[in-house]
């Protein structure tokens, strides 16, 4: 297959990318006229063909990998040249092309995006049936798949940024899909703005990388990465004073005794991390993700669980060779991940909206991924991305199925998602129940499911891994102390992660038991319902739900059609068995995924990620089983507690706890009031700035400047109006005055001159020409004319060596009437640009 498409011009990527774009285009432009069934056909074909092409590309990639003995293989396709910039130590040319590549890392990502994307599209064609924005929805969804593929297949950072912004845009459009309701639109806006903050970081990182490494494509950055760590003062990033200047005058007290600098690797890493926290919903920018659940449920499954939010983790994996150069950044990533995992898990403990619980669970799981990549276990973190895509997509789609069936009974968006009104649904939704149970088992780490292996690997590596700077052994750093993370960080991260895992087990089981076990609590709300009536065998379908006849009995919840359940079954199967790709504990002699990804991460992790205890491999191996006990214990404890609380005791202990600690309970319900904190600090700061600007606009701009302008115009109008009296005689007189003025202008000479840089330190001074003009120059600067008489020569040439001051040239012009005008022209070399280094 490599013979059809050569590896350095792999044009099949055009099909993978082009089909979703085509789908978005067709559905976006003609969707309304085509009708729902045509839209369905188009959107499924687009993603399906894309998936098929992705599979073919992946097979070709695997073939290439085996041919080249497990080297890092890239199938590249350069669509067109985009633009150029310069950067790096030697100011080299940096080409920025629209170039895509598939390697071992994004090959898997590509399969997940198109594969899971196809299943969710299939699900959505039924879930969204009857919505008046049907075509619009699928146009957005296809556009999202396209943008996500651009993001993961991009071969350079600017092109990745295009996809990054594209998925942000689609996320915004789809969160606010039902834009008629104000909270949905507000949620979309919040997501967009939170992401902007992150994008700022990503842009800064791009500028720094271009400046320090002189490249923006993956290969180039990898080659130039060693420039990011250099002990020399000019190669460090000055954080304070910003850019390494000097504060003088009134601000001199801001000048520190010693400038605070960080290595370029740390600056780039932290800036990238800011971008990743925005997209992947980590502290401090996680606040948008839970609100993003305002969008339709398939969107939550596809964008806000399985694919887009993992873009941050993908970027860290992609640029792993940059991150490992700064152990400090790595530690920050791990800490951010662990604390996000903990914080989000505590909030999820008490939420009552089925989608909110899953949203916080997503934030928490993303925290686990960050923890994994932060300790240098890139493959483990990426494995969690992979398994999480399956089980979280499955959970969200199950939630959609539940909401779908609840919605049939309760015509209210909020109440249909409230788990306190559910219960006992396993009786009516057997398939949804089964798949939900499997996916829950995976996320809580039920032994030998996919989530068990991926999460356990992260816990284990968090404890035993230690990141050191790979440049530490370089002779450059003989007299320069590089940062080393403290040794106690591993156990702390491990403990936090185990706690978060225990809470995950608890809240997921709580969700599962409240939704599917016990008695159905939805009878008392919405329409009065009679089960007996249904048992008589009445036909019922979707249309029944939409008449609002409150006197007729309603129906109990019902299972969804096959288009919705088939994706559930496939995803559940993957959640159950995907673990075989990377099982720990020496079950397989070689972990397939680790082995597959090894060429991608090998260069980065070699010498940078070592075992603790002085890289003692035996010590780490011995700990694997011991540390797994933490994960299994967390699973057992959380599940058991949830079972006891919500099944054995029917929720009484939970109610008692909430009543006993009303403050703490309310704090968790209010999501630690982080939104309120942001409102009180950053947002109110921005608001007051906006208010000040508005007041300034009203008083100064509108009040003074605008009025003054109007006054000037009106006054000059009044004066000029006096001249426009309509009397021909007056006009004629004015004409004569004007002609006299022109005559005067031509009668006196004008000594104007221009200076032109002629190169070779020569400057030419040329006088403006005129009728009958003669020129007399004083080019030597002695104040006396060079020649006694006026001549025709209208220009002189000067030689000005670098470093010499300005020369004053005298010019005398005489016109035909014998009138003479003098002028002196100062000729100076242009200021040399201030050297930046």
């Amino acid at each position, binding site marked *: 297959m490599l013979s059809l498409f050569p590896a350095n011009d792999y044009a099949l990527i055009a099909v993978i990318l082009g089909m979703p774009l085509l789908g978005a285009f067709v559905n976006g432009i003609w969707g309304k006229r085509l009708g729902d069934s045509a839209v369905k056909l188009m959107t499924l074909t687009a993603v399906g063909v894309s998936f098929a092409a992705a599979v073919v590309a992946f097979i070709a990639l695997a073939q290439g990998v085996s041919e080249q003995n497990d080297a890092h293989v890239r199938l590249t396709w350069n669509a067109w040249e985009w633009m150029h910039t310069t950067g790096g130590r030697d100011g080299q040319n940096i080409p920025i092309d629209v170039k895509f590549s598939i390697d071992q890392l994004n090959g898997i990502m590509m399969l997940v995006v198109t594969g899971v994307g196809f299943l969710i599209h299939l699900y959505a064609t039924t879930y969204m049936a009857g919505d008046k924005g049907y075509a619009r929805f699928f146009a957005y969804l296809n556009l999202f798949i396209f943008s996500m593929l651009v993001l993961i297949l991009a071969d350079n950072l600017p092109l990745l940024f295009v996809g990054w912004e594209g998925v942000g845009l689609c996320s915004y459009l789809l969160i606010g899909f039902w834009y008629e309701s104000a909270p949905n639109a507000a949620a979309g806006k919040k997501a967009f703005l939170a992401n902007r903050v992150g994008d700022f970081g990503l842009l800064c990182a791009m500028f720094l990388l271009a400046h320090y490494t002189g490249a923006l494509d993956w290969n180039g950055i990898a080659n130039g990465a060693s420039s990011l760590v250099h002990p020399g003062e000019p190669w460090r990033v000055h954080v304070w004073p910003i850019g390494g200047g000097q504060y003088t005058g009134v601000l001199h007290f801001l000048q520190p005794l010693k400038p605070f600098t960080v290595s370029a690797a740390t600056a780039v890493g932290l800036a990238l991390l800011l971008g990743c926290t925005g997209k992947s919903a980590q502290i401090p920018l996680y606040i948008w993700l839970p609100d993003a659940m305002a969008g339709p449920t398939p969107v939550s499954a596809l964008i806000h669980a399985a694919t887009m939010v993992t873009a941050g983790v993908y970027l860290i994996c992609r640029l792993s060779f940059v991150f490992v150069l700064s152990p400090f950044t790595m530690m920050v990533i791990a800490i951010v991940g662990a604390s996000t995992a903990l914080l989000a898990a505590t909030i999820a403990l008490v939420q009552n909206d089925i989608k909110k619980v899953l949203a916080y669970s997503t934030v928490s799981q993303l925290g686990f991924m960050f923890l994994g990549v932060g300790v240098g276990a890139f493959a483990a973190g990426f494995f969690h991305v992979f398994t999480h895509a399956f089980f979280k997509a499955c959970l969200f789609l199950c939630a959609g199925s539940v909401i779908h069936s609840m919605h049939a009974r309760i015509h209210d968006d909020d109440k249909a998602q409230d788990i306190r009104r559910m219960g006992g649904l396993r009786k009516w939704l057997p398939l949804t129940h089964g798949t939900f149970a499997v996916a829950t088992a995976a996320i809580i780490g039920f032994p030998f499911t996919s989530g068990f292996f991926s999460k356990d690997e992260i816990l284990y590596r968090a404890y035993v891994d230690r990141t050191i700077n790979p440049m530490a052994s370089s002779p450059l750093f003989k007299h320069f102390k590089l940062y080393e993370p403290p040794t106690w960080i591993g156990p702390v991260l491990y403990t936090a992660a185990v706690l978060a895992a225990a809470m995950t087990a608890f809240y997921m089981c709580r969700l599962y038991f409240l939704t599917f076990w016990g008695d159905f609590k939805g009878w008392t709300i919405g329409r009065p319902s009679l089960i007996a009536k249904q048992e008589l065998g009445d036909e019922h379908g979707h249309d029944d739900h939409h008449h609002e006849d409150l006197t007729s009995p309603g129906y109990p919840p019902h299972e969804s059609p096959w288009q919705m359940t088939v994706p559930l079954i496939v995803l559940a199967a993957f959640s159950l068995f995907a673990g075989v790709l990377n099982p720990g504990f020496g079950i397989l002699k070689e972990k397939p995924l680790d082995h597959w990804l090894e060429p991608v991460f090998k260069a980065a992790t070699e010498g940078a990620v070592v075992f603790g205890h002085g890289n003692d491999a035996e010590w780490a191996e011995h700990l694997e089983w011991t540390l797994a006990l933490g994960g299994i214990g967390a699973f057992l404890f959380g599940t058991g507690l949830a079972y006891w609380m919500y099944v054995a005791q029917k929720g009484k202990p939970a109610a008692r706890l909430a009543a006993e600690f009303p403050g703490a309970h309310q704090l968790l319900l209010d999501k630690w009031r982080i939104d309120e904190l942001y409102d009180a600090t950053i947002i109110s700061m921005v608001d007051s700035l906006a208010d000040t600007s508005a007041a300034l606009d009203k008083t100064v701009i509108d009040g003074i400047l605008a009025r003054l302008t109007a006054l000037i115009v009106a006054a000059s109008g009044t004066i000029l109006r006096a001249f*426009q*009296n*309509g*009397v*021909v*005689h*007056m*006009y*004629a*007189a004015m004409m*004569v005055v004007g*002609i*006299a003025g022109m005559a005067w202008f031509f009668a006196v000479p004008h000594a104007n001159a221009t200076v032109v840089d002629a190169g070779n330190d020569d400057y030419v001074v040329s006088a403006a020409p005129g009728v009958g003009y003669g020129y007399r120059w004083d080019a030597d600067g002695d104040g006396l004319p060079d020649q006694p008489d006026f001549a025709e020569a209208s220009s002189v040439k000067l030689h000005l060596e670098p470093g010499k001051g300005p020369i004053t040239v005298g010019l005398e012009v005489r016109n035909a009437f014998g009138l003479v005008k003098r002028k002196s022209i100062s000729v100076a070399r242009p200021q040399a640009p201030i050297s930046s280094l």
Partner: protein
Amino acid sequence: MPIEQYAALSGLLFIIGGVGFIVRRNVLVQLMSIELMLNAANLALIAFNRSHVRPLAGSAGAASALPSHTGQVFAFFLIAAEAAEVAVGLAIVLALYRLRRTIRSDEADLLKN
């Protein structure tokens, strides 16, 4: 005769025409003043024509130069322009007289708005 005298006469005629154009209110006299100014220009053109020569192709120096006729040709064009100007000007005067029963320029005040 030196060129300065021609120039002075031309300038004098031009100033007389200009002043006459401003101070007189009779449109016909103003038209005559315009003619005077144009003729002043004509005189200057013809006079300066003599002091300008065209260099002969292939040789250098004033000795082998041909007299130029540019100024005189220009004067002819100017005479044609004057004739057209008078035709239009008199038509306007006639129209003004029919409209306002006057040929005084300060009573021709319909040019506003």
